[in-house]
């Protein structure tokens, strides 16, 4: 059975239908709602893995929405990079969905539909092959994220949410301006068509083209949290609730994905005079972000801020690696992307659990001003879950925290270390000698690892040794399994690093030689449907 191209639409439609279904399930059937949410999210992961296997063996899959051919209609494209991101979304979102069932999903209204809509936006943004459609999916995921970021309410969340929304609305305006200029110059917004026609741009329009690309890039760099456009990230991510913060780790990766996809597609070596336009800016921005994140790591005391700064560090690393424009570095960066996303997600999920060790083992209340509604009897519903204390909960938490710290700081033996080694060896093994930027990247990578180790060790000592650890904190099964899922995924990534590295290397090669992608999209033909479209278009009378 072949999954392509029909199944490419499933990662978008499945959460969309689930969100609609979840709106219909009333408050009374809380169990049912939780079950639907977790099962649908896990099903999304399974579909993503199936698509990955299929794309890896058969190549790029193109889904023509409404059976319209490429430059005219919207296409969804499943290539190696897209499906890799889909699998990542599946893993992190399954962890977050599981974790949310321990309590957070009941802290306010409409958590589940918003969660699923966020997945629609994420999956759609990774799949779409049309620039304006990318804008629409960006807005879908942002609109859902505004709701999720404020979930649980409270002044800190609302204040950081206010800044977060204002910055993202501005970024959306920039996105639209860039789109409009690009359409004015090129007359198309299909990514493959843009890449195809880019070498034909006349010399007098090249300035406009570059301006539009730069404006678009600023919009994406805001989302990818590149310094100096990332002041919104740390307050927003550290104020929001744990499962949503884990999900938000994926959102900065959407910004990186958009830059990676468009920059390698539009400004590839084929683009003649425009080839590698703006690479220096990406590199400089990435290095500055990396430095900023490393200093931030060292300066943070609270665990949620450490986790947020680790997201900034990974954004900077990825962007710097992309800006150096070497296939080997991008391959290493993609492997780093997978491990950094999983570990940052796990760390965000652990924040709340680790804090329980220092408050006498009792589960903390969700937030000071989370007042359940009258019909929201938390205690009765949770009795069967709350009482089940893990006898080994401290050991479990401690080990999970150590694993997280090793992953985030990039220490051996876990996959974080492998990713850093891959990055460093790709940076120093360039064919045309080592650039100065490679040395800076190397120094900053090692320094950020050191600072991460210091910050996490300090937090670990504070939470496990000095203040708490005497009384076993209560862990709910859902919370523990969510954290374990993400850490186990990182463990599997460590053991099976070789096939994954081979996959990311193939991805990087196909990204830097985008001709097969362009041809696959532009040569996808509409399927003859039941009603032949020719008969419908009657000649004008």
């Amino acid at each position: 059975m072949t999954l392509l191209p029909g199944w490419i639409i499933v990662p978008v439609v499945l959460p969309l239908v689930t969100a609609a279904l979840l709106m219909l399930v009333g408050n009374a059937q809380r169990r049912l709602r939780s079950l639907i949410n977790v099962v649908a999210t896990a099903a999304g992961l399974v579909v993503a893995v199936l698509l990955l296997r299929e794309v890896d063996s058969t190549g790029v899959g193109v889904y023509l929405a409404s059976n319209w051919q490429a430059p005219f209609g919207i296409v969804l494209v499943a290539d190696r990079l897209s499906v890799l991101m889909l699998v990542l979304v599946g893993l992190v979102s399954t962890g977050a969905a599981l974790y949310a069932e321990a309590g957070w999903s009941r802290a306010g209204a409409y958590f589940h539909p918003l969660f699923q809509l966020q997945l629609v936006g994420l999956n759609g943004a990774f799949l779409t092959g049309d620039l304006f459609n990318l804008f629409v999916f960006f807005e879908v995921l942002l609109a859902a994220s505004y709701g999720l970021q404020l979930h649980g309410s409270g002044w800190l969340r609302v204040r950081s949410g206010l800044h977060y929304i204002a910055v993202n609305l501005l970024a959306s305006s920039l996105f639209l301006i860039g789109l409009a200029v690009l359409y004015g110059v090129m007359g198309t917004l299909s990514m493959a068509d843009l890449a195809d026609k880019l070498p034909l741009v006349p010399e007098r329009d090249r300035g406009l083209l570059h301006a539009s690309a730069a404006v678009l890039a600023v919009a994406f760099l805001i989302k990818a949290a590149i310094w100096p456009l990332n002041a919104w990230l740390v307050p927003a991510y550290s104020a929001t609730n744990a499962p949503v913060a884990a999900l938000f780790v994926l959102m900065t990766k959407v910004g990186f994905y958009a830059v990676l996809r468009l920059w390698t597609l539009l400004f590839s070596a084929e683009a003649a005079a425009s080839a590698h336009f703006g690479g220096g800016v990406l590199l400089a921005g990435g290095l500055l972000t990396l430095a900023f994140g490393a200093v931030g790591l060292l300066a943070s005391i609270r665990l949620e801020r450490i986790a947020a700064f680790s997201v900034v560090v990974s954004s900077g690393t990825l962007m710097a690696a992309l800006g150096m424009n070497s296939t080997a570095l991008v391959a290493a960066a993609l492997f780093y992307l997978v491990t950094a996303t999983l570990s940052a997600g796990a760390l965000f999920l652990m924040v709340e659990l680790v804090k329980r060790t220092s408050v006498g083992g009792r589960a903390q209340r969700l937030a000071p001003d989370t007042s359940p509604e009258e019909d929201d009897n938390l205690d009765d519903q949770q009795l069967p879950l709350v009482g089940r204390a893990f006898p080994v909960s401290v050991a479990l938490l401690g080990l999970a925290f150590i694993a997280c710290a090793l992953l985030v700081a990039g220490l051996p033996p876990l996959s974080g270390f492998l990713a850093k080694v891959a990055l460093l060896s790709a940076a120093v093994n360039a064919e045309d000698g080592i650039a100065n930027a490679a040395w800076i990247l190397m120094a900053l990578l090692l320094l950020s690892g050191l600072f991460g180790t210091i910050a996490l060790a300090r937090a670990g000592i504070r939470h496990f040794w000095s203040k708490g650890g005497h009384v076993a904190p209560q862990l709910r099964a859902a919370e523990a399994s969510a954290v374990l899922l993400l850490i186990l995924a990182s463990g599997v990534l460590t053991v099976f690093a070789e096939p994954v590295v081979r996959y990311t290397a193939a991805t990087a090669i196909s990204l830097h030689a985008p001709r097969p992608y362009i041809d696959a999209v532009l040569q996808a033909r509409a399927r003859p449907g039941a009603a032949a479209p020719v008969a419908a278009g009657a000649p004008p009378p």
Partner: protein
Amino acid sequence: MEILLALAIGVLAGSGIWLVLRPRTFQVVMGLALLSYAVNLFIFSMGSLVIDKPPLVVPGLPANLEHYSDPMPQSLVLTAIVIGFATTALFLIVLLAARGLSGTDHVDGEQDTP
């Protein structure tokens, strides 16, 4: 007509940016609204400004941009308007929540004492 529209877009965008940088939440929301008007007009103007040219194919006229205005920016701007409207409405709700929780309309929730 081009100059008039360019001036309008410039004035809208300029006032929008100025308002977004102000410290009151209501000013920020107005600024974002003005900015989105400017952006919408800008997208619309990308389809070249012409009078008396339909965006739909009419029998008897060859289908090229000599005889028609480009329908694509018009459909794009429709989508952009709807999305901008919805997100601005959502921002307004957050603004109200911030006002209720902090008791002030300052974006950081803290009043600078003069």
